[in-house]
């Protein structure tokens, strides 16, 4: 009975993802991935490049087929892409021919939401991400940080059940990046969304997450799940606190250890 009352937002059971190679072999991108994400939780997946973290996110988004295991969203198996998940991509993937508001309301347009309703929702989200004054600007008239705000707003517009962010701040400069992290936490609080956020930046993961999933490469799998017990709301200064640095070092060591092991094996 208890199982019924506590259905996880996202449940990943023994998920493996393999790619076929041209010579008939297979490459294992992700193996034995087990994870539970609860309603309203902020989970970061961190790991070196090539550890399969983006592939895993792609599977949750529905771009990527899984080879083994099960993936459940609200208790239902994930089959393909859908408007129940909002994806924010690494690159600024805004439509260059659409204004900020038209980019934000893209998903609603596909869903057939009436124009007035779309506009209202679009304006509300522009306000949420602090871009009221840029409603009719085209992406090339916006800075990198602004573009990623629109990107986040576009994913929020469809009121997804789960938000998936794939290194969204990777291309931004250091200051903008920190500011965007703060903004993302504010938006997360305001919308009460569940977020899975992929990054290779350990400090970013520790700062944002309730739970950091540390992945290692070859094969891409979870090496440890670290619960982050820092108080919220978290000001940017928290990054200089001893607790924060301890978490950062702990995760750093996990990744380095794995790298060392790998070297020994070779």
């Amino acid at each position, binding site marked *: 009975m208890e199982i019924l009352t506590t259905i996880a937002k996202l449940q990943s059971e023994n998920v493996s993802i393999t790619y076929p190679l041209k010579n008939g072999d297979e490459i294992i991108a992700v193996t034995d991935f087990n994870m539970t994400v609860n309603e309203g939780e902020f989970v970061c997946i961190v790991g070196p490049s090539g550890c399969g973290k983006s592939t895993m996110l792609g599977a949750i*988004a529905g771009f990527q087929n899984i080879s083994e295991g099960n993936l459940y969203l609200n208790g239902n198996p994930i089959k393909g*892409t859908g*408007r129940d998940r909002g*994806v924010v*991509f690494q690159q600024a993937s805004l*439509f*260059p021919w659409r204004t900020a508001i038209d980019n934000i309301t*893209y998903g609603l347009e596909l869903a057939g939401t009436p124009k007035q309703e779309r506009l209202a929702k679009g304006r509300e989200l522009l306000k949420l991400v602090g871009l009221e004054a840029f409603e009719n600007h085209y992406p090339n008239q916006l800075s990198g940080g602004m573009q990623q705000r629109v990107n986040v707003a576009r994913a929020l517009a469809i009121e997804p059940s789960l938000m998936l962010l794939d290194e969204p701040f990777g291309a931004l400069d250091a200051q903008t990046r920190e500011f965007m992290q703060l903004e993302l936490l504010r938006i997360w609080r305001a919308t009460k969304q569940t977020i899975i956020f992929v990054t290779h930046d350990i400090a970013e993961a520790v700062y944002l997450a309730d739970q950091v999933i540390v992945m290692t490469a070859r094969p891409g799998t979870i090496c440890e799940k670290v619960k982050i017990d820092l108080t919220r709301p978290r000001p940017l200064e928290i990054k200089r606190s001893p607790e924060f640095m301890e978490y950062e070092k702990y995760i750093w060591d996990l990744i380095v250890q794995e790298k060392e092991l790998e070297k020994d094996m070779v």
Partner: protein
Amino acid sequence: MKEEINSRSQQDGLILKKNSTSRKNQLNTGSFLLNNLGLITVILVLAIWETLYQIGIINPIFMSGPSQIVKVGYELTVSGDLIDNLLFTLGNFSLGFGMAAVIGILVGLVTGWYRPLGKAFDPFLTAMLGTPRIVLLPLITLWVGVGFSSKVVIVFIAGVFPIILNTMTGVKNLDPNLTRVSSSFGASAIQTFITVALPGSLPQIVSGLRVGIGQSLVAVIAAEMFVSTGGIGYFVAQSSANFNIDRVFVGIVVIVILGILITSSVKWIESRLLKHRVE
């Protein structure tokens, strides 16, 4: 392209500034000359041409002069000869090119979107793009006759292939990130096509239209010169056969103006459609 032009004009501006600081007293005349250099050379060439014509160095049997062209052009406009031929040409051209635009864009979108179809179609496209399509004129005349329809068909054939090629390339080179976005928002294939493929390939579609319009214009004039009973091309060919050199020049000037008008209208349409590319 646009950026290139912008940066070039900025560079021009810089050079201009340097010049004007070094020679302050000539600042105004210097910049005026530079800004209107094109216009000045045109006036200069016309003036030299007219002078040579007036003092009799140019033989009026082989070449006309500017004032003479204006005079004969005016007479022909008043008599209605010129307008009739112009309307005939424009009729051929607009119908043929309109069909080329609609069919070219549709075929280009579909062949760009479905790769196998594009591959199957590619040999024909390559063959047709490398060929001066006017060579088909005798065949077309044989099939559909000398009149209106043969011109429409040759204009269509001249314009449609560059439009197909550019549209196809535009769709093929779509940013895969953007198609991924549309699929992440649960777009159907048709929705992706309309919301991503079409607007995403618009810049290439427009450049295809620009190439196509030029080639269609060449085709309509050439076709009229070879097999026709009307049109500006016919008018030029007829006048030349009758050694009426003034009328030949009037015809050429009309074609030049037509070309300029069509090109600038394409530029205007381009700036309207591709607003987001202009800062």
